[in-house]
């Protein structure tokens, strides 16, 4: 192989790699200032679990009749959202008043910078600029990396299905929202535990509640800063770690991974440089052994 051939082939190899430049990060996603969220005030919730029923109804999941939901025995175990229930309410002991247990609704937090969206191999999960994080059945390949990535351990998978198993998680009732309706859980909540609105307004409301009743609330809005901010925000009368919330830092969940990825693939320069370097070494060594 002569030098010309080598250069020609190397040039072809390089040009072949260049269109792949689009691989690098999708443009910095602009999130809407007026994106919506829900404020969950756990000091108000009475644990009626109507939201669980409404959620199943809204997502065509099989459910018992609403009357059955007044059964308090389910609170004996801590439950997690799964492929059959996208939201659940858990009950915790209240150190301030043992007669008044604390009830906490759990569902997808709809992060502003979601780890699942960053992780998904095919972009099947989308963060909408209006707030919701949704999953697209037509793209998902079922690798379950979103479940590995999620810091709140929310996405669930239909392990019992041989064909078209789905990733199940709260979709913030995005279809109902498009029709101008409230999310099903917010609509049915009889106690105004759930407040739907613009996220920035909700933070104001939450701050205001803490300010007016500092004894009732601990001075912490969960979701304001955690993993870069979430659409769903929580207020509580005690430390959130006692209510089974994971301890999280305020750095966006996918942060480090994306920096590593984009570092290795900055405009595809490092891989092409490595290719050229190895090509050079090969060329030199081949000539050397040829001369011997």
């Amino acid at each position, binding site marked *: *192989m002569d030098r010309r*051939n080598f250069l020609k082939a190397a040039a072809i*190899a390089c040009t072949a790699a260049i269109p792949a430049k*689009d*691989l*690098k*990060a*999708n443009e910095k996603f602009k999130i809407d200032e007026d994106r919506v969220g829900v404020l969950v005030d756990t000091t108000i919730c009475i644990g009626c679990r109507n939201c669980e029923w409404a959620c199943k109804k809204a997502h065509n999941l099989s459910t018992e009749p609403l009357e059955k939901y007044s059964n308090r025995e389910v609170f004996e175990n801590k439950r*997690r959202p799964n*492929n059959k229930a996208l939201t659940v309410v858990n009950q915790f002991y209240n150190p301030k008043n043992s007669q008044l247990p604390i009830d906490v609704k759990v569902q997808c937090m709809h992060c502003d910078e979601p*780890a699942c969206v*960053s*992780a*998904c*191999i*095919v*972009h*099947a999960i989308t963060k909408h600029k209006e707030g919701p994080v949704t999953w697209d059945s037509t*793209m*998902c*390949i*079922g*690798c*379950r*990396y979103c*479940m*590995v*990535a999620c*810091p709140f*351990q929310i996405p669930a*998978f*239909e*392990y*019992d299905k*041989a064909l*078209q*198993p789905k990733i199940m998680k709260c979709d913030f009732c995005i279809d109902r929202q498009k029709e101008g309706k409230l999310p099903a859980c917010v609509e049915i909540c009889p106690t105004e535990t759930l407040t739907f609105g613009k996220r920035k307004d909700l933070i104001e409301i939450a701050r205001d509640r803490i300010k007016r009743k500092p004894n009732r609330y601990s001075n912490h809005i969960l979701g304001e800063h955690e993993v870069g901010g979430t659409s769903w925000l929580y207020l509580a009368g005690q430390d959130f770690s006692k209510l089974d919330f*994971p*301890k*999280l830092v305020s750095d966006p969940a996918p942060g*480090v*991974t*994306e920096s*590593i*990825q*984009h570092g*290795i*693939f900055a405009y595809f320069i490092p*891989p092409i440089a*490595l*290719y050229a370097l*190895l*090509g050079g*070494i*090969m060329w030199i*060594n*081949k000539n*050397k*052994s040829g001369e*011997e």
Partner: protein
Amino acid sequence: MDFLMKPTLLKDKKFFTPGVIILILLAINAIVFLAFRFFSGLGSMTNLNNQNPWGIWIAIDVASGVALAAGGFTSAALGHIIHKNEYEVILRPALLTAMLGYTFVALGVFIDLGRYYYIWHPLVMWNGSSPLFEVGICVIIYVTVLYIEFIPIVCERFIGKVKLIASLSFLNKPIDSLLRFLDRSLSKTMFIFIIAGVVLSTLHQSSLGTLMVIAGPKMHPLWQTPILPLLFLLSAIGVGFPMIIFESLIASRSFGLKAEMHVLSKLGRMVGPILGIYLAFKIGDMFIRGTFVYLTEINTQSIMFVIEMLVGVIVPLRMFFSEKVLNSKLLLFFASTLTVIGVMLNRINTFLVAYSPPYALKSYFPSVGEISVTVGFIAILVLIYRVIVMNLPVISLPDKKLVHKTKYEIIGGSK
């Protein structure tokens, strides 16, 4: 050296041995369990759940599989790019291992995917910020490159010898000219694929480490570090040669051949320094992040970490620096086996042991079905390896004909 080595098919060896029959049974067992997986869903035969979405199919079949197939690219770098001719004899076996290894990595991914029939989606639906996407694309391209690198071996075997059964004999000529065409064009362009193979390997070996970084606090701090990609790359490079030594010694024993000790001990000599660098980074990282404190707690994680480091890194590191080990077939095999086990342990630890989700009801342990499939896949891989080396010129044997002609010549590195 009295003999010139030449890749030869091991045609006169017996295929069925007691070991082979056990492998066939293991393979059948795996296929039975796989039927459940495909007809009743992943939940029917795995212990995977919403808390532990990934099991041994990802940790062993995929992550360890990729690492243990690293011999393909490290030997290509040594033999083709640095151009050390004396390693010629290990190139083809290493290439075959990498090719089969990656094929089974792809199969492992295929059976683990909930929607396996959408496995092609990443080719057209891109997410550049996902390390899994990068691993996927690199593995797809690399498998293709490995098969291309293997074509000349097939050409060498069949050019001028294509003899199909009577009804297909009209195809003999076209196939022969196709092989000749491939052989001719590849001999000029092969360097492109060889370099591409090395670049692709460094990329996805490291990105495989990036995979678990996003799990953040769900990962035990002994393994969770931003330099995971670097550690994965270094350990993959480190296990490349031990894996070649490991399988070369097994193959030579199984076929009753003389082991290539002079090449293998030379390979072994390079392992020590690489493992040393890996260990230095691993310990340096522990110092910087102050994760030594977690070793004072006694739990599954800390015990597994100590086993991984002692058995898989420190002991083989010491062994590879000893002349006695490098020159002894048995000890060299032992040291290589430890390194292979060490890297497998590291991948299992990173993907499974370190992964402790906050709301896990019980910790994950693989089901009988999962273990059966993993074991069965390894069995099938070994069987295919055996079929191929018996029918294609992969393993080098001393060539008697060449010996007579060249007996008194000084044989240099040239082909």
